[in-house]
């Protein structure tokens, strides 16, 4: 198998894998929301411990 064929095959595999795995990808806004929630929770906890 020539290097060109290998490269093309890998490219096809990468595109296919990305598309097939797409439903498992976490949406960016969901990630942002999770970080914001975590910060808010931490802030709340530190406020409670200070008081």
């Amino acid at each position, binding site marked *: *198998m*020539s290097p*060109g*064929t290998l490269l*093309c*095959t890998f490219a*096809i*595999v990468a595109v*296919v894998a990305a*598309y*097939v*795995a*797409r*439903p*498992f990808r976490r949406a960016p806004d969901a990630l942002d929301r999770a970080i914001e929630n975590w910060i808010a929770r931490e802030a709340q906890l530190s406020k409670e411990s200070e008081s």
Partner: protein
Amino acid sequence: MLIEIGDSLLMLSLMLAVYAAGAAGWSIHTRDERWGRSAQNATYTLAGLLGLAVAILLGAFLSNHFEVRYVAQHSASDLPLYLKMSALWAGQEGSLLFWGFLQALCAAIAVGRPPRQARALAPWAAVFLNLITAFFVTTIYLQSNPFILLAAAPPEGQGLNPLLRHPGMIFHPPALYVGFVSLSVPFAFTLAALLTRRVAGWTSALRPWILLAWLSLGAGLLLGMRWAYDVLGWGGYWGWDPVENAGLLPWLVATALLHGAVMQTEQQGFHLWNLLLAVAAFALTLFGAFATRSGAIESVHAFADSGLGSYFLTALVVTLGGAIILFIIRRDAVREGAAREDAPLLSRQGSFFLTLTLLMTLTASVLVGSLLPALTELLFGRRFVATADWFDRVTGPQWAALLLLMGLCPLLGQAATALRRLRRRGWPLLVAGALATVLIAFALDLRHPVSLVGFTLVGMAGAVTLAELAGGAYHSFRAHGLRFTVLRQLLRHRRRLYGGYLVHAGVVLMAIGVIGTRLYPFSQDVALTQDRPTQVGGYTLTYETLRHEIWPDHETFRAAISVTRGQAHAATLHPRLERYPGIGQNVTTPALRYGVNEDLYLVLMGWNADQSVITLRVAVNLLINFLWLGGATMLAGGLLAFWPGAEKNMAMDQ
């Protein structure tokens, strides 16, 4: 490089098909939608990858890549473009790749857009459809890979089999394959229904798939018949060859399934019938592939034995065995669904039941006849071959009974009013139709007793079908006068119903063609001396010349025959014989004089040394054009019923 990529695509497709089936199954088990969506994406990608593989192989044909073994075996650089395209499915490997691609495409459409009433079954259907695609890709990759390269590229390909150089061959195989793959959808949903115990209320939702299968198989069979008539040069169109039968069998079952789906739509039961028919239809497509590709059955249409038979036989056994086990395990659910299937025979339900039964006995008869040589050899050590005459005698009465039912069924309503409707509306119509047809047959001197029975049935079924077709238009005319918009609305709202009646009209016309060709056959081999008129089959034939032409890959002998009917010159026909020394094949191309009542069909068989005498096979095919007209009408009716929008108006048909 592209060919190597094609090979890699097959490997990738195999892994993806297994993943798609597994992910769909896992989504059902875990109830995690993400796996379901991933399986869906894999199904779409699979269709894309196999489509790309087909495109690469097609590209190899178009650019004469003879280093690819499959291209070298089935193409040549001087082949016209349309034949290079049809060469893609001229051999075992390419045709199976194309079939696999269509299977993946069908799975992608069925999984992506499942019918609303059957949406709950879609995840399980996705599992089975992807398993079917996985089977095809495995078979292609392990046993029938079209991307195998030769050690050294030959300067020229071997060319396409001369028998396949016909425009019909561009559409005939794809039409059959579309029909075969469409039948996998009702099958997959049937297994899904049995697994989920939802056996009722979904078959009618798959009607478009069943209709597509019926339409494509019908078109494929009709094109195949025309190809046999134009190319094979034996004067006929249907020889009950096992491979022809392999296409007919699923079509017969699809016809039964369509009728069963209509009954289910009308809430008349038939659930069990439909489940069984969906399984039988798909199993018969596998049987057809086995018959064509195993070498177990002898036929002019079959591919050479290449070890594929065991794959398809295993698939057939697994399909039937798995379905039977599922039916046994889910017998309670199936029995519940079948609870409403009691109806008197003299009713619409009863006549549908008889129609389905007849279609099944016909299927069984054709199947037994096709398997008879192989079975008798296996069991008794002696081959008993079912001849065309055997098939005609066994199936003829069954076709006749179907024609009778076609005439009676539209006249019957619900059981309570069936007799009254038949007495009031039916008898005059049936008697008038039968009398008119028999009188026309007498006038044309067609007096064979069996044909008169046939014409009686044709007249009855034809009269009822015409009355049903014209009835709506007549009522509209009485209510609104001659208004085109009203008629168009009527046609649009009752598209399914009129499509069905048009199919029936097509069957009636085809029956006339079959009666004419089967019961009034004329075929005679005659020796014609140059410039000496000879009377044969009601024509006067005069052999004028025999021309010899040399082409790059073959030589042609072309006779000129002057045809006279009565005193008038009717035509000059040119039957020819082509010799392909490279592949050691002779091809006779018949010459035809078309007529409304009959075709004159001449085949050049041979000649003497000084070419002063030629031997011709002369066939006169009575009423054969009714067969082609009927076939076209039948397909037009199917297309009318299939046309988008027909489903929306379903309720108005009832």
